């Protein structure tokens, strides 16, 4: 039974890939149309030449930089806002004002401020990471059982001690969900940022996988390379998501059913 199911699930993907290959064979200009076999060969070439790994590492480095700098600020601010009602009441309107702005919409401003290099992409990544992080942190801190806080107060703990020893551990699962969402949207926007920086700066050599895709599109017309990049962007997204889910299950086994 389970064999039948697993065999069935391969039918449509394989069929589509085969169709794609056949269709590519009939296409008029054969060198331009990407076909699965060509994509595989291209992937092999790009990996062995180190082109793809270095571009991915560069993009991931930017994601890491933006994610950690904006994420730590968001974490701190979120803890304070979740903990102190006055601060939250006054800062929440500002957070909610900026939250609907799509990170990519800020890219033109980022280019104006930082030029077309790494800082512009890092800024966009940081912006994308900030909001999931802060919103989930506030949500997590506010969701902490009040009785636990009261118990700690009864036992005479100081405010900072309560924050550190009671609130943070209890809010950790929600914070981690925020980190996972932030990481996902960071990776999404780094590709967009590199792509748009590339297309708007005339392909300056800032590197990264998005930039590589743009160069393939605009200058080298390597469509198979573009498909390889698309697939690797997807694989990295999947690895980030699954990896962080796994870390969460491993590090916080008590929080199985938190968030999405």
């Amino acid at each position, binding site marked *: 039974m389970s064999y039948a*199911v697993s065999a*069935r*699930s*391969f*039918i*449509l*993907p394989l069929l*589509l890939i085969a169709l794609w290959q056949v269709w590519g064979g009939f296409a008029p200009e054969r060198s331009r149309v990407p076909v699965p076999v060509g994509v595989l060969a291209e992937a092999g070439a790009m990996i062995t030449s180190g082109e793809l790994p270095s571009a991915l590492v560069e993009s991931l480095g930017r994601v890491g930089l933006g994610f950690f700098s904006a994420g730590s600020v968001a974490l701190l601010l979120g803890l304070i806002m979740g903990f102190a009602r006055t601060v939250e*009441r*006054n*800062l*929440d*309107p*500002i957070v909610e*004002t*900026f939250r*609907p*702005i*799509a*990170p*990519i*919409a*800020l*890219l*033109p*401003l980022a*280019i*104006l*401020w930082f030029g077309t290099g790494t800082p512009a992409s890092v800024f966009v990544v940081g912006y994308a990471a900030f909001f*999931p992080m802060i*919103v*989930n942190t506030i*949500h997590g801190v506010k969701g902490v059982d009040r009785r636990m806080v009261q118990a700690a107060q009864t036992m005479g703990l100081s405010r900072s001690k309560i924050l550190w020893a009671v609130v943070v551990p209890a809010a950790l699962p929600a914070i981690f969900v925020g980190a996972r969402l932030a990481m996902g949207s960071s990776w*999404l926007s780094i*590709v*967009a940022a590199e*792509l*748009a920086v590339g*297309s*708007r700066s005339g392909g300056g050599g800032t590197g990264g996988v998005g930039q590589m*895709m*743009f160069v*393939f*599109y605009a200058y080298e017309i390597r*469509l198979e390379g*573009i*498909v390889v*990049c*698309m*697939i690797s*962007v*997807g*694989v990295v*997204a*999947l690895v980030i*998501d699954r990896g962080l889910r796994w870390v969460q299950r491993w590090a916080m086994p008590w929080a199985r059913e938190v*968030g*999405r």
Partner: protein
Amino acid sequence: MRKATVARMSERIAVPALAARSWPWLGRLLGSGAAVYVRSILGLLLVWHLAALSIGNHAILPTPWLVAQDLYRLLLNGEIFDAAGTSLWRLALSFVIAAVVGLPLGILMGLSRLADDLIDPVVELLRPISGIAWLPLALFIFGVGNELPIFIMTYVALFPILLNTLSGVRQTDPTLIRAAQTMGVGRWVVVRQVVLPAALPSVLVGMRLAGGACWSALVAAELVGAPSGLGFAIEWYRQLLMTPKVIAFIAVIALLGYLTDRGLRYLQRRLTPWATGIGDVP
């Protein structure tokens, strides 16, 4: 005499409290959410203004006042309405296409094990590839124009709609379906009368997520490959170094994104009032 003066002085110091005591509505207004909001935003605008003054270069950071003036001008000459109309039209079209494809497919996959086994792997293979990653290839296929943003947005909106429809259909109480079947109702009627209403809350959550995803994809797609629309406008004015207009358009994008979300939330509350709280994970 002296006592009276002191009393009056202390009254003068505590004017807000006094005002609140004399006119309760004023106190309510000052302490209300709206007042706090206005206060916070005014503080933000002040910080922005001071920052802009200290930088002293309007191409880098214009003052809020300059942005407001340009926003007014853009509203007056209709440029904002043109750009927003173009973008919203593309958004609506992609949304409809995604719903027309995603809803039936999700229902089919939810009801038929075979369809699920066949289609699900393709969905799971494509889903990690973000809409934005399709941009270069789509640029090659469609060129710069309407098709590119519509394709990207449809792709982006399809997954939330499809997957939430699927999970809504799957969560339908099987007892209800069996009850309907026992009463001899046909398959189509079961779908329409039982499964669809049961899945509706989840479907609407999917639509709201799709709306949000569409907005950010819209900006990216129009920035890179469209000759018109909001995303194009910010990039156009960036190249002209007309930063106040860039910020004005960013504000419009934010406002419309916010209103879209509010609208879909309203729809959610109106159509499925029994399902409040579902999907309201931040």
